[in-house]
């Protein structure tokens, strides 16, 4: 039986939540108060993730897709459960679209996007064939590399003297309005609500009692990193450039210049881009495959992986023609019309139904 250690779950949850959030400015609509939006989002995101872990506690040994059939019955629960793998395939497609637009604009400008994305997906497919144990083990190995990368970036930026803390002031100069706009629903659902996906593998945790603690620690960790990078981007670039830029992280790193020797650190951005998208697309695809595997009760899901990789490629390549289209959908449509119903409304409903049923059962047997 495959088991995941506490550290591995912490590492993959943190990396999943960070994802490509750092590349696109988190809460940019809040301007120089984006870091407050990031802090607030991670606080509210922790509450949401706490609720997901309580749901897992109420359904021991069951995965996300089984919770719905358990509480709503097979006629209503099955279609609701099917919604999740379908939306995860779409989310994987969004990762593919991120790569499609980011790679040619940062490195490899002359290579056709479909070749880059296609070979990337083949690599992911090979990775998925290895199974969840290898995915989690690799997550545990990549996590310290990312932590080291972040520490070096922060140190280099602060020591190159390009920062101005005055860019953060006046704090909340334009009130809470724009901060709240960045937090609800985008801030909460984008990084933290998506973590409900990991409920597909929570049953594999070696020490189930530590589930909530691990998840909250990972969320706190991701929230702090996002806040730190928001602060760094604002104090280096200033509010105007921070809001205008599609990828503030790359612009921030370009400012590093130490003794006219350590310069052009775009390579760090590229390493981060590859690691984060590789991991996020892999997890989206793996979770959708095992969800469908459980729903249609098949033993060998390898053909599903190949099928989903093909669908992900097609969806990712056809969803947007350019970066503005891609980000408009991400910031305006997805949080309100897809993520809010699936990551907040349905889980809250499920939580209330589970709670009421357990309370009634307790009263009956008391």
């Amino acid at each position, binding site marked *: 039986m495959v088991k995941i250690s506490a550290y591995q779950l912490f590492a993959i949850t943190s990396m999943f939540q960070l994802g490509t959030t750092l590349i696109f400015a988190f809460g940019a609509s809040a301007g120089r108060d984006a870091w407050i939006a990031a802090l607030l989002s991670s606080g509210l995101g922790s509450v949401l993730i706490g609720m997901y872990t309580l749901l897992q506690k109420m359904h021991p040994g069951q995965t996300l897709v089984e919770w719905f059939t358990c509480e709503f019955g*097979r006629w209503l629960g*099955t*279609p*609701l459960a*099917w*919604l999740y793998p*379908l*939306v995860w395939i*779409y989310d994987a*497609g969004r990762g593919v679209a991120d790569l499609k637009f980011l790679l040619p604009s940062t490195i490899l400008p002359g290579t056709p996007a479909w070749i880059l994305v296609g070979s990337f997906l083949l690599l992911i497919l090979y990775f998925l064939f290895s199974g969840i144990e290898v995915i989690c083990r690799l997550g545990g190995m990549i996590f310290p590399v990312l932590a080291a990368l972040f520490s070096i970036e922060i140190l280099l930026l602060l020591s190159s003297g390009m920062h101005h803390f005055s860019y953060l002031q006046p704090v909340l100069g334009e009130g809470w309005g724009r901060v709240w706009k960045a937090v609800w629903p985008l801030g909460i659902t984008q990084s933290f609500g998506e973590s409900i996906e990991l409920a597909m593998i929570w049953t594999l945790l070696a020490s189930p009692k530590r589930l909530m603690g691990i998840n909250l620690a990972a969320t706190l960790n991701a929230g702090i990193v996002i806040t730190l990078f928001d602060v760094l981007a604002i104090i280096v670039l200033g509010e105007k450039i921070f809001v205008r830029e599609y990828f503030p992280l790359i612009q921030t790193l370009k400012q590093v210049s130490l003794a006219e020797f350590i310069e052009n650190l775009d390579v760090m951005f590229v390493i981060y881009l590859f690691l984060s998208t590789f991991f996020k697309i892999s997890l989206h695809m793996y979770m959708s495959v095992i969800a469908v595997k459980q*729903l*249609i*009760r098949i033993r060998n899901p390898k053909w599903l992986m190949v099928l989903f990789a093909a669908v992900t490629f097609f*969806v990712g390549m*056809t*969803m*947007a*023609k350019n970066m503005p*289209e*891609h980000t*408009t*959908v991400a910031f*305006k*449509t*997805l949080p*309100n*019309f*897809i993520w809010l*119903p699936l990551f907040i409304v349905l889980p809250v409903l499920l939580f209330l139904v589970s709670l009421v049923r357990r309370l009634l059962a307790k009263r009956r047997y008391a």
Partner: protein
Amino acid sequence: MQAAILWPWGYEAMTRYPWEFLAFIAVMALLLSPITWIRAKSLGQRKDNAASRSKSGQRRQNKASRQ
């Protein structure tokens, strides 16, 4: 309009008719659900048949019916 119908995940559909994609995956989920029900039924029947074929299974069934 045509692009929105053909590509529910495309930019035009997502921005002009934002509920369309959710409706699309809801319809897909409804269409795929019968696979789950049929598989569950056929696997259940197969288990029942296997249990009734084996002697120990028959004994278990007899015991259960007596209870």
